[in-house]
């Protein structure tokens, strides 16, 4: 079963439109939604959660249409938003008491364990937490009702590397259960590269690609060559190029590279930057 299936999803605002988005996130996997600020990541997540109304398209979550009974579906979904959204005067203990009455499957023991594991103070108001602690509490809440799907909007942005690593480990552990899945959006591509089985590139409301992370790295390479050498490549194989004082740097399909051309492995961030710039051209 797929955790998320999105077909031809469209949403238009005055100056922005999400254009016929198609995505599939299989269970047991982590998908990274990558895009610059304003690319449509949060809009996509809000549409998935039916927090905003779509113009057209279809969204299926855990095998069910997301508008059928979203309240019941959300029992199986843990969400962490960029701003978390917990009231600043509430302590972790109070949040636990509130969520106990919000989620049918709320597990007080699991919440306590999360608080201890993430070293979160129980009686300090949320407003006095650092950004990292706020995110951790959001994650503790998201994990303590035994969700099958985690949706995280910029959950690692603004965190120090140690906290980020802790949090990424938690997400990895979560998907060891084959029935679980994670959709995580970020513009810190290096985090997602380490963590994700799939990456989806969103740019100005359009999906540039959605692929398995390892396959992307196998498929593309960076070539360092002259403009004349690059001209010998089939245009369809060139994903993006950048001129520098020594010639040209380009991302191309690996199979089309002649042996004499100098290459280096591509990382997801480079791939995204090249594709986004090529798209904007």
């Amino acid at each position: 079963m797929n955790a998320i299936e999105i077909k031809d999803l469209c949403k238009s605002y005055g100056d922005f439109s999400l254009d016929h988005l198609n995505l599939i996130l299989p269970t047991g996997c982590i998908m990274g939604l990558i895009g610059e600020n304003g690319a449509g990541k949060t809009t996509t997540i809000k549409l998935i959660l039916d927090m905003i109304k779509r113009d057209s398209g279809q969204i299926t979550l855990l095998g069910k249409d997301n508008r059928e009974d979203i309240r019941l579906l959300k029992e199986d979904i843990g969400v962490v938003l960029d701003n978390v959204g917990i009231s600043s005067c509430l302590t972790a203990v109070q949040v636990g008491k509130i969520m106990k009455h919000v989620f049918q499957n709320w597990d007080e023991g699991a919440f306590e364990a999360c608080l201890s594991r993430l070293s979160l103070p129980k009686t300090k108001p949320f407003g006095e937490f650092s950004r990292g602690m706020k995110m951790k509490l959001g994650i503790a809440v998201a994990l303590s009702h035994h969700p099958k799907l985690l949706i995280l909007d910029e959950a690692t942005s603004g965190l120090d590397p140690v906290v980020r690593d802790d949090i990424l480990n938690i997400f990895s552990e979560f998907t060891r259960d084959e029935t679980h899945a994670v959709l995580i959006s970020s513009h810190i591509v290096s985090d997602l590269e380490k963590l994700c089985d799939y990456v989806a590139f969103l740019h100005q409301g359009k999906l540039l690609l959605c692929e398995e992370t390892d396959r992307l790295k196998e498929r593309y390479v960076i070539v360092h060559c002259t403009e004349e050498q690059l001209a010998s490549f089939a245009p369809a194989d060139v994903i993006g190029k950048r001129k520098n004082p020594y010639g040209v740097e380009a991302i191309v399909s690996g199979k089309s590279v002649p042996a004499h051309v100098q290459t280096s492995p591509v990382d997801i961030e480079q791939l995204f930057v090249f594709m986004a710039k090529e798209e904007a051209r």
Partner: protein
Amino acid sequence: MKGLILKDFYLTIRYCKAIMLLDLVFIAIYLFQKENLFFLFYPCVFAGLLPITLLSCDEREKWDSYAGTLPCTRAQLVSEKYLISLFGGLIVLLLCGAAQAFRMISKGAFLPMEYLGVIMTLAGISFVVPTVLYPFIFRFGTTKGRVLYYILIALACAFGSVFFGDHPGIAAETGYRNLTMIIAGAVIILYGMSWLLSIRFYQKRDL
């Protein structure tokens, strides 16, 4: 729903202490001054302010978006605020009613119909603000709603001055008493209608 109410209970304790304290101060002043119902109107107006304050906090701290990710329907999110208003309004009404009864009894002039007229007026004042404001807030957010709220306070105070300010016994006069009963009754009915309208608006709102 219980979780949402509990959350607002915590917020009320934290953010609305001043409002609650002011309510008690005004009621206490009413007990010891020359009879002027104005001192009972204020706590009722403040009661209407309490849920608006909570909604502002929700919006400022992005709780409204977060609540949209929780397994709660939009109808539950709206209804919880109406219930908080109802609880808050009834508690203040109870306190004001007790103060009014105390005054009438201590003067040896407890007139049931006059008492009922005052209570209905206070009920009308307690619920008129959320009745009118909530649909706007659930449709447009608290910023625009607050502007409307202050306009309503000014209107309510003007109404109070004209009808009761210098005439403490005015509620006993049959014509006015009937009028206030009708207005208060209408507000209570409109409160229910406003509840349904807010749910309808909030269903369509982007979170």
